[in-house]
Structures are given as structure tokens and as C-alpha cells.
């Protein structure tokens, strides 16, 4: 099913000509932001001389630290009266990033999400239950606007409240859901506990599953239990949010919308392009974004471009499942967390001794984060209540910084492993 067949099946030559024209335009528009004005000048790039794709590699990369350094408005390239929304990552101590949208940006985003949904077979007769978080995260609202654009009856549930989720599925006969893999696995257990067999009692036929990495095994498990077709989704807030790339019914890689983004895969060390089909780091350029254009953004997700044409007829290239990161970012319950954020939160507290470690596990299908923290010798005054207050304080500080609530365990000083140079800060025991 196509939402915009002309664009989705555009011959490569035409698509690349469109990219060239749009790149020329976006570079000139980006240069109006304080950040790119400076960035281009430093890189010796005159935006007026950029002709098209052939000049792409002359343009400097943009990294997440740039977004932090120029937070909040440094990358905004339009008059603030034309900005209508922001989404932001968590963080209160200099690690925040925010993304801004004009009316046209929201419109384009909804259109891309509608394309993704139509590609899976969803249509305006469907009842769509959106089960990811609304608010500052892009997952909820991004999918919401796309679903309405497609014409689905949209139930803006958000995440959690499992009993109500199940009741709504029954009452309204939801046929399409959007959910994270960990929540989906949890939901399956809840169904079983309530004696609900989704295949018999519910009408779910399509599950759009994303925001966290998951395996083919998880997909098969969910499909078997829900009796629904599960589609993998890819997106990131810097590039709008969900809807950047999505699986079609072939379920062999995710089509990335190349009329809105330039896709590059580079070697994370040399930053040179890899050969087609080889794994590397995704680099993306927004082509149509007005409020906050981003040029050659190092996404840090590792994947490859699948060679060959897709039988579905779409010409937009497919990326493989994300297999990792070229930095230390963690995805916990769908939230992006950097170990440095946890370190920042801990180091504001004098009671903390220096050693700390994150342990990630999956408990009943959901991510569980434990932060082990060494108690400083000097802090301990022999009071168990004081220690429990400290646990709560640490938990609150990490939650404020990352929006993820950890289990905090206090440990003795000098007991956590330290390797020479870089300490082993993260133990990820999650099976994806």
C-alpha cells in the first residue's frame, strides 16, 4: 500500500536530482542559524557555492555535542515566530538537546509517518492504539500525527496502564498498535495472566514496534503471540523522531525516506564512506527541515545499506537492523541515556566515593537498571536511615538527569572494578 506512490517509487536518478536541489537549498537555509554560520566559516565552506550531492563531502559533520553546546536555540534557522513545537531529550546539567519544528516540519513529519504506516498495510479503516509515551519524547506525538494523517481512528493512550490498554483493545477493537518491544513482551505476559488470547479475543493485525533494538527472535515471539504482523521502525529525535525509516511488507530492512534525508554510511574511525553493504555509522542530512536543519549528523547508530532493489517497488534504500552504537549511548526503556549523565548526577553528591557502575538486565521483558554506587568513607556516620536517604537522593538525581528511575545499590568503597584509564562503567546483560 502506498501513501505517496510517486515519491516512494521515484527512479533513483530523479530522487538524486531532488536531493541535490534540496541540499543546495538546505545548506543556504542552515547558514542562517548561528551554529552553522560559524561552523561553515570554520570549515571554509561558502554555502553559496554548494551545487549539490557532489559537494556533500565538503560539508562538515555535526555531532550531538554541537547540539548541546548550542542548546537551546543555536541551530534554529528561521524566525522564532515560525517555530511551532519542540521536542527535547532529558537532562538538566548541560546534556540536554532540543529539536524545533515549523508548521511545515510537523506536516512533513506526519506525511513520512503516514507513508511508513501505509507501507505496513495500515489504512483509514484501522483503529490505532498508540502505546508509547507522549510529551517531550517524539515517539508518541510523532506516530499520533502520522496516524491521523493516514486517517486511522487514533487512541492516544501513551505507555503504561496495562489493564486499561487491554480494556481499550477490547472495547474499541484496536487493529494497529505502536509499542516498544519491551512493553510488548510485558503485555504478552499480562495477556496470559488475564487469560486473554489476543488471536481469539482481540483484533490486532499490525504491531509497529520500535524505539528500542530487538531481535528477529523477539519479532517471531510477538507475532506468534499477538497473531499480528510486527514491523520494525527507525527514527531519532534529531531527525524528527519515528518515521525516518520503516519496514515494508517484505520485512527485509527499513526504507529510509531519501527525499527528506541524505543517507551516508561512514567508517566511524576514518569518517570515509564504506562500500555498499558494509557496516558503518549512519550520517544523515535533513533536506526539508525548516526550523532546525541539520547537516551530516553523526547519528552513531551502526548499520549497513542492504544492496539491491526491494520487491515492494520503493526506490528508497533500506538500512539493516541497528546492530550497535559507535559511542557509549544506552537505550533504556526507550530512553537515550549516556553514562556521563549518570556520572554527572553522582558527582554532584559529596557522599559518593567515586566508584560507580551501571548494570542493565531485563526483568519480565522490561529493562531494569541498577546503579551500584560506592559510599565514601568519610560520609558514613553509622546511620542506616542516612544511607537509605542517600539511596533516594541518588535515585532522584539520576531520574532528574535521565528520566529513567534506577534501582540504586550502595556498595563498599573500592569494590567496583577499575581498569587502568577507563573504568568499566556499564555491564549490559540484556538479551535483545
Amino acid at each position, binding site marked *: 500500500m502506498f501513501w505517496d506512490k510517486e515519491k516512494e517509487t521515484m527512479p533513483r536518478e530523479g530522487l538524486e536530482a531532488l536531493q541535490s536541489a534540496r541540499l543546495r537549498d538546505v545548506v543556504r537555509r542552515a547558514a542562517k542559524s548561528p551554529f552553522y554560520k560559524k561552523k561553515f566559516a570554520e570549515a571554509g565552506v561558502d554555502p553559496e557555492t554548494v551545487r549539490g550531492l557532489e559537494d556533500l563531502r565538503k560539508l562538515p559533520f555535526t555531532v550531538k555535542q554541537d547540539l548541546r553546546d548550542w542548546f537551546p536555540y543555536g541551530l534554529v534557522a528561521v524566525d522564532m515566530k515560525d517555530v511551532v513545537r519542540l521536542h527535547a531529550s532529558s537532562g538538566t546539567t548541560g546534556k540536554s538537546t532540543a529539536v524545533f519544528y515549523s508548521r511545515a516540519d510537523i506536516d512533513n513529519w506526519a506525511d513520512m509517518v503516514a507513508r511508513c504506516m501505509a507501507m505496513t498495510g495500515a489504512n483509514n479503516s484501522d483503529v490505532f492504539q498508540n502505546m508509547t509515551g507522549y510529551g517531550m519524547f517524539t515517539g508518541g506525538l510523532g506516530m499520533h500525527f502520522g496516524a491521523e494523517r493516514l486517517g486511522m481512528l487514533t487512541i492516544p493512550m501513551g505507555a503504561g496502564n496495562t489493564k486499561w490498554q487491554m480494556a481499550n483493545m477490547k472495547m474499541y477493537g484496536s487493529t494497529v498498535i505502536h509499542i516498544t518491544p519491551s512493553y510488548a513482551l510485558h503485555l504478552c505476559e499480562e495477556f496470559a495472566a488475564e487469560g486473554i488470547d489476543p488471536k481469539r479475543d482481540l483484533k490486532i493485525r499490525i504491531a509497529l514496534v520500535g524505539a528500542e533494538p530487538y531481535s528477529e527472535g523477539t519479532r517471531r515471539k510477538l507475532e506468534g503471540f499477538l497473531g499480528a504482523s510486527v514491523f520494525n521502525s527507525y527514527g531519532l529525535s534529531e531527525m524528527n523522531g519515528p518515521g525516518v525509516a520503516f519496514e515494508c511488507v517484505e520485512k527485509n530492512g527499513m526504507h529510509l525516506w531519501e527525499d527528506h534525508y541524505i543517507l551516508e554510511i561512514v567508517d566511524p574511525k576514518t569518517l570515509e564512506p564504506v562500500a555498499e553493504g558494509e557496516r558503518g555509522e549512519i550520517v544523515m542530512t535533513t533536506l526539508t527541515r525548516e526550523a532546525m536543519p541539520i547537516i551530516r549528523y553523526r547519528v552513531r547508530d551502526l548499520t549497513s545499506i542492504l544492496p539491491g532493489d526491494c520487491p515492494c517497488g520503493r526506490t528508497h534504500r533500506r538500512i539493516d537492523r541497528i546492530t550497535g552504537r559507535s559511542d557509549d549511548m544506552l537505550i533504556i526503556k526507550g530512553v537515550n541515556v549516556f553514562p556521563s549523565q549518570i556520572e554527572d548526577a553522582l558527582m554532584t553528591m559529596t557522599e559518593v566515593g567515586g566508584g560507580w557502575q551501571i548494570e542493565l538486565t531485563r526483568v519480565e521483558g522490561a529493562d531494569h537498571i541498577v546503579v551500584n554506587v560506592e559510599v565514601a568513607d568519610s560520609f558514613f*556516620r*553509622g546511620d*542506616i536511615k542516612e*544511607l*537509605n536517604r542517600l539511596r533516594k537522593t541518588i535515585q532522584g538525581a539520576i531520574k532528574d538527569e535521565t528520566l529513567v528511575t534506577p534501582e540504586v*545499590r*550502595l556498595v*563498599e568503597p573500592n569494590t567496583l572494578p577499575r581498569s587502568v584509564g577507563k573504568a568499566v562503567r556499564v555491564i549490559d546483560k540484556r538479551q535483545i
Partner: protein
Amino acid sequence: MAVQAVVFMQNMPGRLARMTGALAGAGVNIRATAISSSEGFGVAKFLVDKPEIAAAALKDAGFPVALKNVVAVKMDDTVGGLDRILPLLQSRNINVEDAYGFILERGKEAVFVFEVDQPEDLGEFLSRNGCSVMSESDLYGL
């Protein structure tokens, strides 16, 4: 004022043995001990003959240690022994944070050790009211 050594530890096998090993190695005699645990960690309390030496030995063994003031009261090991002391605390609205007791001689003498929220003049108050509050030398020399 008398003190006991209070030690932070992780709630896992072998931690107490490490502490008693450190104390034995330093020639410290343990009079009484109490352990409480919370979420994943615990606090061990040692009433010993040489608190300063005990604290140093436990610190050397890697544990955070604090010396905490305690009030130790000697009492009859008979029915109602403890009941003569606690109403006195109640009368002054003193809250017992932690406490434990041990018997010195069966049927004759027992000791009750308190950690209270306002320990400063508690010993004097209890003495005035007929309790046998132990001095530091009494307690360490048991």
C-alpha cells in the same frame, strides 16, 4: 561517652568473616554485636574492648567505619529488668534508634545498649533515676 564501632557492608557472604578476621588480627575482643540490613547493604555494630583500634583495623580492611555513642545500662537479669528503664526514656520523649542486650551472668546481670536520638545527657539522667549506667572503662573492661 562510650562508643561502638559501626561498619557499612554489602549484604553478601564473607563480609562479616572479613570483619571478625580484622578484629581478631588486631587483638580486639568483641563483647557484643548486632547486625541490621536494608536494601542490599547492612550495618554491623561491634561493642569491643578497644574501639579506636577496632575502627582502624576495620578501615584497613576496606570498610567505612564510624564510632557511635552508646549508653550501656547494667540491670538485673530478672523479669521486669528492662521495663524499669524504658519508661524513663519515654518520660523524656527519647527515641531509641537501635538497641540490643546481652547477659553477663545468667539470672543475675544483663547489659542493655542504646543508641538514642539525643544521647548527650542521657547517662546522667538514667543514673539520677537509679539506673546503673556503665562507664567507658566498665564497658570496655567487661
